[in-house]
């Protein structure tokens, strides 16, 4: 089985073949000796890759596995090539995000973009007040604003879309 994994922005082509014992795994064509064992809750795992031991915690989100290793969490999205039917055509990668979402609920206190604006990566777009702090949400890449969906004073929920880019 072939999988394409985006782990925190880096792409890996991984194959997994079932067999007696641990499955046969390759990463970008290179065989990796893998032993993968789940704890009882199915949310914690012990992974050994080429004898390296990793303590793994999993949080599932829609279309996303958040994989926590020592002191670090990777957002991993997996494309199952068989099901997606795109068999390694390279469509996964640094896809430009077309929406600005708020990572937390809160109160919109400032909106600094309007439809038609050309924004640059790092530009402040919307400020959301939460946890007693003013949190400035910024553009992740250069883009053109198509639509602004919030106004100051509005209460937003986690993952609400604030701005749509072209």
């Amino acid at each position, binding site marked *: *089985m072939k*999988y394409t*994994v985006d*782990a*925190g922005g*880096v792409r*890996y082509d991984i194959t*997994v073949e*079932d067999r007696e*014992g*641990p*499955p046969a*795994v390759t990463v970008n064509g290179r065989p*990796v000796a*893998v*032993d*993968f*064992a*789940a704890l*009882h*809750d*199915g*949310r*914690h*795992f012990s*992974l050994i*890759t080429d004898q*390296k031991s*990793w*303590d*793994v*915690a*999993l*949080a599932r989100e*829609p279309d996303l*596995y*958040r*994989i*926590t*290793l*020592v*002191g*670090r969490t*990777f957002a991993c*999205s*997996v494309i*199952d090539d068989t*099901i997606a039917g795109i068999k390694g055509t390279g469509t996964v990668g640094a896809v430009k995000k077309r929406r600005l979402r708020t*990572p*937390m*609920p*809160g109160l919109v206190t400032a909106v600094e973009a309007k439809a038609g604006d050309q924004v640059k990566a790092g530009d402040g777009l919307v400020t959301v007040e*939460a*946890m*007693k*702090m003013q949190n*400035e*949400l*910024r553009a992740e890449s250069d883009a053109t604003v198509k639509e602004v969906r919030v106004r100051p004073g509005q209460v937003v929920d*986690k993952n609400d879309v604030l701005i749509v880019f072209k």
Partner: protein
Amino acid sequence: MFKKVLVANRGEIAVRIMRACREMGITPVAVYSDVDRTAAHVRFAHEAYRLGPPPAAQSYLAIDRIIAAARASGVDAVHPGYGFLSENHDFARAVEAAGLTFIGPPVGAMALLGDKLRARATAQAAGVPVVPGTDAEVTAAGQAAAFAGTVGYPILLKASAGGGGKGMRVVERIEELPAALRLAAAEARTAFGDERIYAEKLIERPRHVEFQVLADGHGNVIHLGERECSIQRRHQKVIEESPSALLDGNTRKRMGEAAIAVARAGGYVNAGTIEFLVDPAGAFYFLEANTRLQVEHPVTEMVTGIDLVKKQIRIAAGQPLGVSQNDIVFRGAAIECRIYAEDPLNNFLPSVGRVTSYREPSGPFVRVDAGIGMWCEVSLHYDPIVAKVIAWGRTREVAINRMARALGEYRIAGIATTLPFHLAVMANEKFRRGEISTRFIDEEFDRPGLPAGVVEEDMRLAAAVAAALIKHGDRRRQAENGGGSARGGRWKDDGRRRGLRRWGA
């Protein structure tokens, strides 16, 4: 001694105070807002009383509700923790009016040292140097300009009632003065209901060094050494240590004496902190006093062996300190990392949600003061600090290495935390050499790097392999289950439980 104490706070500091209570045989009582019904501090308490809805004004800041809970539970005393009502004279008065003991300083000392202008005057009268500044409030730009004329720009406008960076403005040029003064006063009015602003010379690249003092009601005042709190972000401390890596013995001695002098002059009783700025040349200036327990008190506990919360309780109960300055022996070095529910890989934006995996570090000389645990919900209603990790070592280097080890063990999933940021600081060569100032984070961390000693590529690859194998297991179960939705609720949950066990031997 008190039999029962109400802790008018939440999170890690409420748990910390209750731990001291339990060790003293005192029954700890919690109060909670609705969103905190199953929070750690409620589950840790012996009794728990509901205050009201989540907003602090209707719960942890609602003096009447807290007093009502205190009466209902029949406590002898109230500990305010830090933040919330801890520096509120009205609350301290209300506690006393209810015939209970406020575990903190006398109202008079709180009012005197809590006001920055009055505290500065008190320090000066005690012969302690203060940052050059105006002795009174400035109400017109002209007054501030005149002051700047004597000390030079940049200057700092500060709220006399201030704290936490609110009502504070750096002024680089005279043209900025009128607007800055207006904005600072407006912020101060909103935040503190007190618009008085004064001006100070801006000390550039300062270090923030504070002294812990303990004073009893019998005239004894001692200090427990200093804490270096220069690693700050948005005027908030994020890493603290004791001792300071840069203080020489003579300066330490003079600052300790100055701290005691300010506490005495302010009529202070209980645990308090005297904050100083130290300029690059090594000169120190009184900055302000904190009339309560500090977030960073554990580093002092680790190097002195003294439990500050127990001392607070005993002092409030009228007992003498029981230790003199000569009894205080400093051992080794301690560091604290404040773990915030913020995403260091995404501009430190707050992170809310449910904790889905939780494991605390422990082992030799590691301490965790946490206010969260497995399945806890981190909400947006309160301060984002979720835990503190404290590591001790015989030397600062050992403490840093131990902290890095402990941070690596700490697993919090479901919310983003500042753990990766702290790991990066522990690996930072300037930090390890002690070359720090309050501008350290701005200068060193555009965005934090990776944990020391771990090769990022290895780690990322392991995460990718884990993701592929989890997906593979999901697919297999999906096939077994006859093609049901992969996100099909209970089917998958059950499958996860049964199916995702180990492959082979």
